C-alpha cells in the first residue's frame, strides 16, 4: 500500500521538480536541491490535480490510464528537457560547493531532530486515534473524494444534488489527490488521505527550513522549522486531514519565491511565474486561497510600482498572472460551470449584507475573537467548554515577537520588497477574513469558534518565515553575505586571508 502510494507521487514530483528547474533556473547559487524537491513535490501535486480535473470530463473506462500515460509523458519530456539543458546537473553542482557545516550547526539540528521526532510521533498518535480525520475531513474533503471515486461517470450529479452542507463548491485539489492515490492503491483506503496529510505537513516544515536555509542560513531555517513543528495546532490540523495545511504550503511558497527573484542579479520573469503558479494552486486548494491569490497578484505589482515604476510593475503582474492562469482558469470553470454557489453568499441578499455591515456589535465580537484567537491559536484544537488560557511558552505569536525582540533586526535591502509584500498580503488577507465574518450568514460565534484558528494557521508558516527573514541570526553563515557582492568577489575575499597566511609563512 505504502509502496503504491509512493509510486503515485513519482509523476507529480518529476513534473514539479522539472518546472522548478525551468522557472527557477540553477544559475542562482542560493537554491538548494532539497528546496527544489520540497517545492516541486507540492507544486507537482497541485499541477497533477489540475490535469486530473480536466480528465474527469473524458468519458470511458480508460480515462485513468490515458491520464496517467499523458502525465508520465509530460513529466518525462520536462525532465528530459531539463537534463538536456544541463539544468539538473547545474542545480546539484552548485549546492555541492556550498556545504559548510561545523559543530555549531548541531546546536540547531539536535533540538530540531527531537522536535521533529516528537511532532511525527504526535501526528501518528493523532492519526491512529482518528484515522478518518476530524469533522471537516469526513464532512468535506474525504466525502468529496468518495463521491468522485464512487460515482464514476456520474460524478457531476453530486454538484446538483443539493447537499449544500457538504460544501460542494470547495475547490478540488485535495479530493482529486486522494482519488488519484486510491486509483493507484486499487481501491479506497484510509491510509491514502493520512499519507497525503503527512506529506503536506512535512512539506510545509521542509519548505520553511530550506527556504530560510537558502535565503539566510541553515540555522535560521532549522530554528524556524522547529518553531513550526512545535506548534501543536500545526501538527493536529495536519493529522486531521484538512485542507488548511496544503493551503499553507502554497501560501508560503508564493511568498518565498519572490525573495529568490529579488536576490537574482538579473531578475527573471519566470521566477515570478512560479510564485503565480503557487498562488493559483492556493486558490485551487480552498476558498480562502482565492482571497489570498487575488491580494497577492495585486499587491506585489503595486509595491513594485512604488519602488521601480509602471513598466516593471506591469511586467511583474503579467508574470504572476501567467503563472496563476492555469489554476485560475480551471477554478473559474469549476466555480461557474460545475459547482453550486457558496453558502456564504447564496443564502443572502443585499439588505442582509448591509444590515450586518452596519452592526457595530459584530465588529466588536470579531475583533475580540481575533485578539483572543490570535494569541492562542497555535496551542491546539480549542474545546468549546474550556477555551485556551494563554500559554506564552507554547510557540505562538508572543514567542515569535519575543524572539524578534531578543534577536534584533538584520535588514537586507534586497529583501525589503519581499518582506513588505509578505506582511501586506497577510494583513489584507486577515482583513478580508474579518469582513467575511462580519457578513457571514451563519451564527457568528459558532463560525468564529470553528474556523478562525485554522484561518490563522494557514498564514502561520508564512509569518514565521517573514520574521526569521528579518531577525538577526545567532550565527551568520554563508548565505548572509552583504548585498551586491558577487561570487567572484566573495571567492577572492575568502582566499585573501589564506594568501596572507601563506605569505607570512613563506
Amino acid at each position, binding site marked *: 500500500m505504502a509502496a503504491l502510494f509512493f509510486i503515485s507521487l513519482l509523476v507529480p514530483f518529476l513534473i514539479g521538480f522539472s518546472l522548478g528547474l525551468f522557472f527557477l533556473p540553477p544559475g542562482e547559487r542560493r537554491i538548494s536541491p532539497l528546496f527544489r524537491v520540497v517545492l516541486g513535490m507540492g507544486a507537482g501535486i497541485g499541477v497533477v490535480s489540475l490535469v486530473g480535473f480536466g480528465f474527469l470530463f473524458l468519458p470511458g473506462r480508460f480515462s485513468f490510464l490515458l491520464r496517467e500515460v499523458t502525465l508520465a509523458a509530460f513529466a518525462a519530456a520536462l525532465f528530459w528537457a531539463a537534463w538536456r539543458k544541463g539544468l539538473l546537473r547545474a542545480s546539484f553542482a552548485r549546492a555541492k560547493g556550498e556545504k559548510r557545516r561545523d559543530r555549531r550547526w548541531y546546536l540547531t539540528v539536535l533540538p530540531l531532530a527531537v522536535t521533529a521526532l516528537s511532532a511525527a510521533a504526535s501526528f501518528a498518535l493523532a492519526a491512529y486515534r482518528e484515522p478518518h480525520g476530524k469533522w471537516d475531513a469526513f464532512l468535506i474533503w474525504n466525502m468529496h473524494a468518495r463521491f468522485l471515486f464512487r460515482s464514476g461517470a456520474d460524478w457531476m450529479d453530486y454538484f446538483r444534488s443539493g447537499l449544500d452542507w457538504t460544501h460542494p463548491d470547495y475547490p478540488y485539489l485535495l479530493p482529486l489527490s486522494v482519488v488519484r492515490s486510491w486509483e493507484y492503491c486499487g481501491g479506497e483506503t484510509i491510509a491514502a488521505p493520512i499519507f497525503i496529510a503527512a506529506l503536506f505537513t512535512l512539506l510545509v516544515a521542509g519548505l520553511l527550513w530550506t527556504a530560510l536555509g537558502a535565503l539566510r542560513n541553515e540555522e535560521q531555517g532549522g530554528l524556524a522549522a522547529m518553531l513550526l513543528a*512545535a506548534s501543536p495546532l500545526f501538527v493536529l490540523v495536519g493529522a486531521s486531514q484538512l485542507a488548511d495545511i496544503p493551503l499553507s504550503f502554497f501560501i508560503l511558497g508564493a511568498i518565498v519565491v519572490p525573495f529568490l527573484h529579488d536576490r537574482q542579479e538579473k531578475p527573471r520573469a519566470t521566477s515570478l511565474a512560479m510564485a503565480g503558479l503557487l498562488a493559483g494552486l492556493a486558490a485551487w486548494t480552498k476558498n480562502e486561497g482565492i482571497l489570498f491569490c487575488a491580494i497577492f497578484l495585486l499587491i506585489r505589482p503595486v509595491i513594485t510600482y512604488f519602488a521601480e515604476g509602471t513598466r516593471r510593475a506591469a511586467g511583474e503582474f503579467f508574470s504572476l498572472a501567467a503563472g496563476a492562469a492555469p489554476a485560475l482558469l480551471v477554478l473559474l470553470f469549476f466555480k461557474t460551470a460545475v459547482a453550486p454557489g457558496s453558502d456564504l453568499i447564496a443564502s443572502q441578499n443585499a439588505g442582509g449584507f448591509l444590515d450586518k455591515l452596519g452592526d457595530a456589535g459584530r465588529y466588536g465580537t470579531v475583533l475580540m475573537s481575533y485578539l483572543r484567537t490570535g494569541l492562542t491559536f497555535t496551542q491546539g484544537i480549542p474545546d468549546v467548554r474550556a477555551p485556551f488560557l494563554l500559554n506564552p511558552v507554547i510557540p505562538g505569536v508572543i514567542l515569535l515577537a519575543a524572539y*524578534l525582540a531578543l534577536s534584533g533586526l538584520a535588514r537586507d535591502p534586497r529583501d525589503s520588497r519581499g518582506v513588505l509584500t509578505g506582511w501586506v498580503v497577510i494583513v489584507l488577507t486577515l482583513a478580508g477574513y474579518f469582513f467575511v465574518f462580519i457578513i457571514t450568514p451563519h451564527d457568528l460565534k459558532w463560525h468564529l469558534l470553528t474556523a478562525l484558528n485554522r484561518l490563522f494557521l494557514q498564514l502561520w508558516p508564512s509569518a514565521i518565515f517573514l520574521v526569521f527573514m528579518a531577525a538577526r541570526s545567532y550565527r551568520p553563515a554563508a548565505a548572509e553575505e552583504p548585498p551586491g557582492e558577487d561570487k567572484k568577489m566573495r571567492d577572492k575575499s575568502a582566499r585573501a586571508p589564506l594568501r596572507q597566511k601563506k605569505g607570512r609563512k613563506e
Partner: protein
Amino acid sequence: MREIKRLYEHYGPFAGYLLIAFCALYASLSLFLEKARDFPGTGWEDPVSVHERRIEPLKSVLPPRGAVGYVTALDSEKIFARERSLRDVELLGHFILTQYTLAPVYVYNTPDRPLVVGNFIGSNPDHSRIARKGLVPLKDFGDGLILYRRKE
C-alpha cells in the same frame, strides 16, 4: 548604556535561539506526552469506523445510486440547530457519517423520500411519530438502524 547595547548585539540572537529551542522542545514533548496519555491501545476502532460498520449493511439493500431520506430521534431542522448552538453534535455527526458511508447515494435530512434510513443510536424510535410521517418499516438491521418505506 553602551555596554547593554553591546551585550544585546552580542548575545541577543543567541538568547533568541535558546528561547525558541527551549520552548519548541517543551511544546513538542508536551504534545507528545498528551497524545501518548490518550493512546487508546492496540486494536482500537475509532467512532467513525464503528459507525461505518454499523451502516454498511444498508448498502446491500439500497440501490447503488439515487437518494434516500433520513429520520432520527429529533426532527431534521433541530439537528443542525443544536450543532450551531454548540449544544449537541452527536445527532448531526450520525447524519454526516451516514452520508459519508452511503455515498454516492444521497442522504437527505428529511423523511419525504420513497426509502428512508432510520438511525436511532441509543434510543428507541418513537413509532407513533414515525407513523405520522407516513413511514413503514422495511427492514430492521438492529442497533437502532431501520430502513423505512414511505406509504404511497
